[in-house]
């Protein structure tokens, strides 16, 4: 039997705090064979990234490896002195980080960062290193690499930057690549390409891959074997097909069940009844939004020089009362701009938004109606709640400003009722947001949205900052509340599976244009537009596992 590239045995990583020790990784063991792609999957806090950091020797102090061993090709590396560990990095173990926008130094050209990495490890002169850098970029699929090598990172798109990052990680020919959520910050269509590039480069250079991700779909398409982690421990190890089709441990079963899939499931909502456009509850008519680009305040004084960028172009759709419309698109498609116009945060350049027959941008009455009927749930529950306010005040604010409830006991009563509705204990109203987990915070955000008794809620990526199991709970809650209060949702998401399970109808937005809209099943099962088909094909889905 061949020797594993990486062998981890009973690894324990601890973080000593003032009076207690937090064990981030607790007795983890697994092997990675040469040329193998091993997926490490788990929810946030499972210790998967920490395991990766331990292997490459980049645990942030005061964290440290408390016990166990890490062997690279049989050679023990966890107890090496720092200088020798540093020599392994890049040369024998490469790493790819999650966010390509922040992993490159913004002040140096891509070429400089590549050549310095190559020259740090290989005995090449400047010209040879540059040639190798160009070859690597070509291999990573960067068009016109020879010209673009002297560009700065900000001149590349997110997907291109991640290609550069992968080229950098592989530059010195390491035996092992640790990819920590390499595609989580990217759009679906780009994600698929990056996975391909990562796989291709690693197999070309004979590197094994430790792929750390929360996305089971990515693992299903990429990895040979997988390790499921939970609370710092390995729950289950096996081949990808085995674990997805026949999970043995209860945690794995639950994790797999909570992943939404783009295949129609039982319990998914029914397609909307024949949409009667003129009577629909929400009507968006030919919405257009232009942004000016070019020039600061000074050039604006000069006439006729402003260029316009049309972020949203003639978008029209309707939503029936009590139904959910899913708006799908990649970053830059204009979906968030649409949301902001509908909730009244950005003024449309032209077009109309009618909610229950009132034009919400008509001023006066329309404005008042909007404040009463329309609410919003934001993507990041860590950023959308005021950290200095107690939960009670956060939830009560819309009531107070709209004059729904003024006296103290009545407000507290309503807040308690809302907290119960979102399945939180009413006793938590005296706490501050930081005392809650991400899922709980999003429930608080939902309670806040409900507190003004709206009829229409715009949800901008409501679950994309959450773990899958939490996501499933939040989506369940949203569905239950919709039934109870007859809410109408506009669900904006890049996650096609979530949209499939939640929406009655779907619109697909691409570069500001609504390329396709219709009942959910029709869009997913029989897409007409090329772009929609491309999006659906690109989704990594566990149902696609071979």
């Amino acid at each position, binding site marked *: 039997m061949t020797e594993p590239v990486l062998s981890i045995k009973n690894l324990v990583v601890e973080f000593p705090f003032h009076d207690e020790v937090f064990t981030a990784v607790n007795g983890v063991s697994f092997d990675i064979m040469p040329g193998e792609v091993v997926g490490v999957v788990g929810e946030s806090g499972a210790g998967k990234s920490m395991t990766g950091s331990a292997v490459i020797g980049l645990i942030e102090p005061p964290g440290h490896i408390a016990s166990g061993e890490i062997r690279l090709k049989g050679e023990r590396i966890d107890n090496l002195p720092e200088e020798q560990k540093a020599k392994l990095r890049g040369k024998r173990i490469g790493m790819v980080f999650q966010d390509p926008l*922040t992993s490159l130094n913004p002040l140096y050209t891509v070429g400089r960062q590549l050549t310095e990495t190559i020259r740090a490890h290989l005995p090449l002169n400047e010209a040879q290193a540059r040639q190798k850098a160009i070859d690597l970029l070509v291999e990573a699929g960067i068009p016109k690499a020879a010209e673009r090598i002297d560009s700065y990172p900000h001149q590349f798109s997110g997907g291109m930057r991640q290609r550069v990052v992968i080229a950098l990680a592989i530059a010195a020919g390491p035996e092992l690549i640790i990819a920590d959520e390499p595609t989580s910050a990217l759009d679906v269509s780009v994600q698929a390409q990056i996975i391909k590039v990562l796989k291709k480069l690693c197999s070309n250079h004979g590197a094994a891959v430790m792929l750390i991700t929360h996305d089971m779909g990515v693992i299903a398409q990429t990895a040979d074997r997988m390790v499921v982690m939970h609370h710092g421990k390995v729950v289950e190890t096996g081949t990808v097909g085995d674990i997805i089709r026949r999970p043995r441990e209860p945690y794995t079963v639950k994790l797999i069940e909570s992943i939404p899939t783009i295949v129609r499931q039982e319990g998914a909502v029914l397609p909307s009844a024949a949409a009667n456009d003129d009577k629909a509850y929400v009507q968006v008519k030919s919405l257009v939004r232009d942004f000016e680009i070019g020039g600061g305040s000074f050039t604006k004084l000069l006439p006729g020089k402003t260029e316009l960028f049309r972020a949203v172009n003639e978008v029209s759709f309707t939503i029936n009362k009590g139904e959910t419309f899913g708006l799908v698109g990649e970053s830059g498609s204009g979906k968030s701009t649409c949301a902001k116009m509908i909730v009244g945060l950005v003024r449309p350049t032209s077009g109309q938004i009618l909610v229950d027959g009132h034009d919400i941008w008509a001023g006066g009455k329309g404005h008042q109606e909007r404040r009463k009927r329309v609410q919003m749930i934001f993507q990041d529950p860590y950023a959308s709640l005021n950290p200095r306010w107690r939960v009670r005040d956060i939830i009560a604010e819309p009531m107070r400003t709209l004059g729904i409830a003024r006296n103290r006991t009545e407000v507290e009563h309503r807040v308690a009722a809302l907290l119960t509705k979102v399945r939180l204990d009413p006793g938590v109203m005296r706490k501050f947001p930081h005392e809650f987990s991400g899922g709980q915070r999003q429930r608080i955000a939902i309670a806040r949205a409900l507190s003004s008794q709206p009829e229409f809620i715009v949800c901008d990526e409501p679950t994309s900052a959450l773990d899958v199991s939490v996501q499933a709970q939040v989506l369940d809650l949203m569905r239950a509340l919709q039934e109870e209060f007859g809410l109408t949702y506009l669900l904006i998401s890049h996650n096609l599976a979530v949209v499939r399970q939640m929406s009655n109808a779907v619109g697909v937005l691409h570069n500001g244009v609504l390329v396709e809209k219709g009942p959910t099943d029709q869009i997913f099962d029989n897409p007409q537009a090329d772009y929609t088909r491309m999006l659906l094909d690109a989704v990594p889905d566990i149902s696609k596992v071979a």
Partner: protein
Amino acid sequence: MLAFIARRLAQSVVVMLVVAFIAFLVFRYVGDPVSSMLGQDSTMADHEALRERLGLNEPFYVQFYHFVTNALQGQFGISYRLQQPVSQLIMERLPATIELAFASSIIALVLGVGLGIYTALRQRTFGTGVIMTLSLIGVSLPTFLIGIGLIYIFAVELKWLPSFGRGQVVDLGWWRTGLLTESGLRSLILPAITLSLFQLTLIMRLVRAEMLEVLRTDYIRFAKARGLSQRAINFGHALRNTMVPVITITGLQLGSVIAFAIITETVFQWPGVGSLFVNSVAVVDVPVMAAYLVFVALVFVVINLIVDILYFIVDPRLRDGAKSGR
């Protein structure tokens, strides 16, 4: 790049015009220049004649126009107190101030950046603790106290260095420098240290804070993961990113070193524009005050322009931003 500088220049002109206007208002409306020039026992006819001669009877905008055109030629009128042209007074004293500011800026920059880097990289060491504690003292002690303390130790007790004045100066025709004589250099040491101490500690703490911030970023972690040497990471990648915000603050601080060296100049009786200003305020010498106001504004505008250009050189994102206008 050129368009960017042109735009900044245009903005600078606007700023200077506004400041000139304020200086003009001060000059024209703070007290009556005529009565302060003629004194108590003058007749109404004298007043009227002087008014006419100074152009004070002309309309407001004509007077402002004259003020600006004169200022552009470096003429700010005649000092009430010293009966000399203001521009001449300032030019005589400017070299002293500039040499002092220059010396203290170099001390502040070299030591501030150096110590900032040292304390950021050697975070939990004894040396860092000592430097950080001392820096607190530097930030919190008022300048005059530091000046007096230094005078007491090095001039009065040890008698190593002179306690006041500029020492011997060499006249180069257009510039009288103290940098070429031994006594001039010796005289510069104490005031330069005094003036630099606050800036030094400020720059040091700023560099340290920024550097610690940068060392936590993803691209530094990635640089480590790529196996670059500590040296390349700290001085190649981290330092340059640290400099972007540091340049702004440092630029403005150096501006205030030149413009507001007043206290140090007073303590050391340094014959610079700061002490000229203090003496002028005492006797309401309005032309000098107005000229000083314009001068300080000019210093800040020029430094800001330099800072903007440096930003441009350091950060490639801005170069593109200016091109596409975003």
